[in-house]
């Protein structure tokens, strides 16, 4: 890592007696946007809350900008957080909401209001300053929450599923704005989401979390192309990657990676890698076809049992009940150990 942004070293945390984080190691470089991705209950929000100091650690250290803050109270960590619910103060105007953090830290009122205006301009909500949260739409509240987070120039921004309450179009728009804002500020950000598309689009690096453990950390490309486990492979990508026993009905064609054992491994391939008219393919029947604009997803059951999903151009989609021959090339295939689920590295 270059300069220290945020470091979690062996951090464990518990909630009501149950361990929710198991010795999590994460290093976020200064100016980096790390997305913490995982299903609900994986401990994503706990990671943020531990960094913010809202939740105590049961082990490990938290360092922000090189400073050990493990024992520091939240107010002394110089982090700001955007809550999923935005946590705006309903009785304060937008300007007062944004300036709150400055005013309780005894910044003169005029200075605080001026900086609040600047922050509001940065996220495009300067025209809302005199309104109250009750008068704002979801997207506007989101902007105000962002402005409130960046008014104080913190060392780390923590964003807890900030886009999850927005409708799709707005989410896509805000996602792009968030990324642009990050690039403009050069801020260190940790963004939590369960939405894999959001993670892939937004992140410098993604940390995939599962049951309180870090499953894989890597760039979106690495996560997509070399998933470290079947969990990551199936969690990222929609529909999820097909997983079959290597000695099952679908035999990939072409040159196999060197040394792949014939037993005890699983092969995974994404729906877009499936070929439906392979000469030596496995026999399958089309159960169901979903058309999404230009693409179609064909849900197939192999004659030998397991199900496979294929993505095909909508124009060349098979009909329901049609018989197809499923094939895939080794080049598009991932190999995992069947027992541990970990990626097979030759």
């Amino acid at each position: 890592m270059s300069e220290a942004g945020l470091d979690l070293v062996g951090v464990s945390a518990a909630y009501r007696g149950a361990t929710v984080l198991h010795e999590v190691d994460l290093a976020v470089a200064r100016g980096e946007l790390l997305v913490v991705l995982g299903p609900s209950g994986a401990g994503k929000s706990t990671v943020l809350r531990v960094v913010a100091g809202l939740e105590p650690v049961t082990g490990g250290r938290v360092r922000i900008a090189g400073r050990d803050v493990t024992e520091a109270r939240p107010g002394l960590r110089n982090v700001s957080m955007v809550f999923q619910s935005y946590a705006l103060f309903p009785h304060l105007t937008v300007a007062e909401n944004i300036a709150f953090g400055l005013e309780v830290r005894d910044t003169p009122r005029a200075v605080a209001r001026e900086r609040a205006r600047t922050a509001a301009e940065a996220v495009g909500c300067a025209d809302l300053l005199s309104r109250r949260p009750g008068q704002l739409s979801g997207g506007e509240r989101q902007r105000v929450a962002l402005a409130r987070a960046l008014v104080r120039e913190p060392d780390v921004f923590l964003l807890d599923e900030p886009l999850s309450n927005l409708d799709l179009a707005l989410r896509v728009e805000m996602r792009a704005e968030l990324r642009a804002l990050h690039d403009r500020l050069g801020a260190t950000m940790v963004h939590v989401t369960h939405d894999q598309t959001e993670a892939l689009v937004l992140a410098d690096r993604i940390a995939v979390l599962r049951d309180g453990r870090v499953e894989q950390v890597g760039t979106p490309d690495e996560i997509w192309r070399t998933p470290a486990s079947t969990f990551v492979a199936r969690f990222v990508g929609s529909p999820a990657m097909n997983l079959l026993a290597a000695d099952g009905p679908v035999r990939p064609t072409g040159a196999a990676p060197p040394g792949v054992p014939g037993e005890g491994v699983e092969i995974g391939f994404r729906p877009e890698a499936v070929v439906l008219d392979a000469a030596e393919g496995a026999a399958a029947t089309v159960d169901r076809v979903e058309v999404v604009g230009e693409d179609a997803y064909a849900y197939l059951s192999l004659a030998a049992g397991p199900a496979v999903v294929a993505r095909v151009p909508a124009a060349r989609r098979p009909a329901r009940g049609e018989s197809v021959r499923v094939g895939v090339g080794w080049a598009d295939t991932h190999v995992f150990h069947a027992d541990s689920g970990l990626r097979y590295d030759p």
Partner: protein
Amino acid sequence: MTRPDTRSRRHLALMLAPYLVGLVGLVLLPAAVTLALAFTEYDLVNPPSWAGLGNLTELSGDPVFRVSLTNSLVFALVAVPLRVLLALGLALLLHRRAFGVGTARAAAVLPTAVPEIAYGLLWLWLFNPLYGPINQLLRLGGENGLTVLGRTPPQWLTDPTDARAAIILMSVFTMGETFVVLLAARRSLPRDVYEMAALEDATGWDVFRRITLPLMAPVLALLAVRDVIASLHFSFVPAFVVTDGGPPPYATTYLSLFIYRTGFEYLRYGYAAAATLVMILLTVAAVVVQWRLFRRYRAFYRL
């Protein structure tokens, strides 16, 4: 909503009936009779005789009535804020889960659950100037029955000012309902707003002043209105049981006690009805004023 058909209308009427009978028989009719009686002389023996505005004119010149009116106003002015503040303080203190909090909450509500007469008798003992525990505590460390500061301990039931304080003190501890409502109100405030404040390193005072108080203000206003109405009633039993309206001159004779005495002891029902009328008008005035403030507040916050 669709128009209820005849059958369900009959059901509605049937289910409303007990309440309506009670409302008419126990509230509206007596109120109408009181209103009518206010303009008569009536002693329960002879039939009521028309007195016109005579009762009201007499009230305006009656020194005892004036004293009771003042006593009631002072009582409401002092006791209501004290009750609401104590309830708020306890609610903020006891809203978290912690060891002993359940017991403390029960203790805060308990005085309200004690029957009023028993509660009055209990305080009669607590207030006893010689062997009552309050004054025994106050005399700790002092000599010759004086307090540590060399002052005479309060003569709770014999000194006019001390007696008024005693009645207020008694009423302050029966704020259980207010406490319960405020406890619920505090617990319903969103947690993330407080976490937000913690991240900004807001002090406890800032959090109270800038977040808790404004967010709870609508509930507080509502409780204050309710308490003002109620305070005209709950001054009755303590004054009746503990101080008997005294010490002279009428130090703890409140409107409610004045009305009771005038009606049931001096058998002047018409006169008592006129005083009741004044008390009701006063209550209505207080409620209207507070409600207006409250509504302006709501519009302001858009809650």
